[in-house]
């Protein structure tokens, strides 16, 4: 399959479009950082990169058109996003809907590949499973080639094993191959014991609150209680 469906520009390079679904955008988000790790093994001699922020593509007509134009030239579209209430953040869904609608009514290239990189705030990466299936369903409906996904827990925290998994996935995607099963297994293991994540996480929330002058008691506020 390698090379069989490659789409290149006049310089012989392929294009990967990274669609960032985090509200924090391309510069500041963990989602974008993780995508950079996946793309680490994409040779600059063979691949060009373009990055689009889903929120900008939804609110700005110019970015919307740029997203669609880039997707028409892409060999690979990589969606990288945090998990919001078990699925994609709303603007990411809107951006995917725009791609699907565009492909439904315009003459668009075949053999465009699509992969997803998901991260959630819970310890266990498997919280991302339903969202990954949503991404796969989009891929099928949009006529894209589904290359699989990467699912991270622990708010996208990385260690050596996780980075190796992301690099293995990137190496496969750069070779026009689907994310291999070994990546699902490598990324699927939580990075710490559950008790430690809960203890450390709860400590972290109290510390963040304290920085804002919010006490542990204030943090339990119920502003919408008792008004019925």
């Amino acid at each position: 399959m390698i090379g069989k469906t490659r789409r290149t520009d006049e310089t012989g390079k392929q294009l990967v479009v990274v669609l960032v679904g985090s509200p924090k955008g391309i510069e500041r988000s963990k989602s974008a950082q993780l995508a950079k790790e996946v793309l680490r093994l994409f040779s600059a001699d063979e691949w060009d990169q373009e990055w689009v922020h889903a929120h900008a593509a939804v609110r700005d007509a110019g970015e919307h058109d740029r997203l669609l134009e880039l997707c028409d030239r892409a060999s690979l579209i990589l969606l990288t996003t945090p998990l919001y209430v078990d699925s994609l953040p709303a603007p990411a869904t809107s951006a995917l809907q725009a791609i699907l609608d565009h492909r439904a009514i315009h003459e668009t290239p075949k053999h465009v590949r699509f992969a997803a990189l998901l991260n959630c705030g819970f310890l266990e990466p498997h919280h991302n499973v339903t969202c990954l299936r949503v991404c796969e369903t989009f891929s099928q409906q949009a006529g894209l080639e589904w290359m699989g996904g990467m699912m991270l827990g622990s708010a996208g925290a990385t260690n050596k094993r996780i980075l190796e998994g992301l690099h293995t996935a990137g190496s496969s995607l750069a070779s026009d191959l689907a994310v291999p099963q070994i990546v699902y297994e490598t990324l699927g293991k939580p990075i710490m014991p559950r008790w430690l994540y809960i203890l450390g996480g709860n400590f972290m929330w109290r510390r963040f609150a304290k920085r804002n002058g919010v006490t542990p008691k204030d943090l339990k506020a119920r502003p919408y209680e008792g008004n019925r």
Partner: protein
Amino acid sequence: MNSQRVTILNGSLESDDRCDQLAALLRDRLFAEAWEVVVHRPDSMQIAPCLGCFGCWVKTPGECVIDDDARGIARDVVQSDLVVYLTPIVFGGYSATLKSAMDRLIPLIMPYFARVRGEVHHVKRYARYPRVLGIGLLPYPDPDQEELFAALVDRSSLNMRSPKTVVRVCDRPTDDVEAGLSHAIDEVMR
């Protein structure tokens, strides 16, 4: 006198009025049974995307830092006995318009983590949460999307700490569907 309250979140898309028809059906049915009915259509409301800032947890606990219509939706949801997520099924999941409201419901739970059903989830902020009825509309039968939608509503409800969840998928508002919805409401409130 039924003193129960239901909030219907209508995730209708501009290009598809089936959700509006179904929302009207549901509203009338529940109203006839003396429910207090609140209907929100996020598509026609001012709802900014969630900023992912966690301000609703660590700056203004329990309330989103963005002052728009999503605050009222969160208030209505947690003060209800039942919330209905009504949506055209999009890629097996929620429409972006419904999701824009759902993304802004996280002030209703606490930032703290706990073990729930063998996984890490957030701790409850309130003593009680509404039951959930998920209603998805498809243009044609699609078992894969139906199953995915049901799994998604189940997972969302677990994360929002709802005590019970029922999911139905249909293709258009008909008499059969109306009867089916009545059964679904009975089932979820039982």
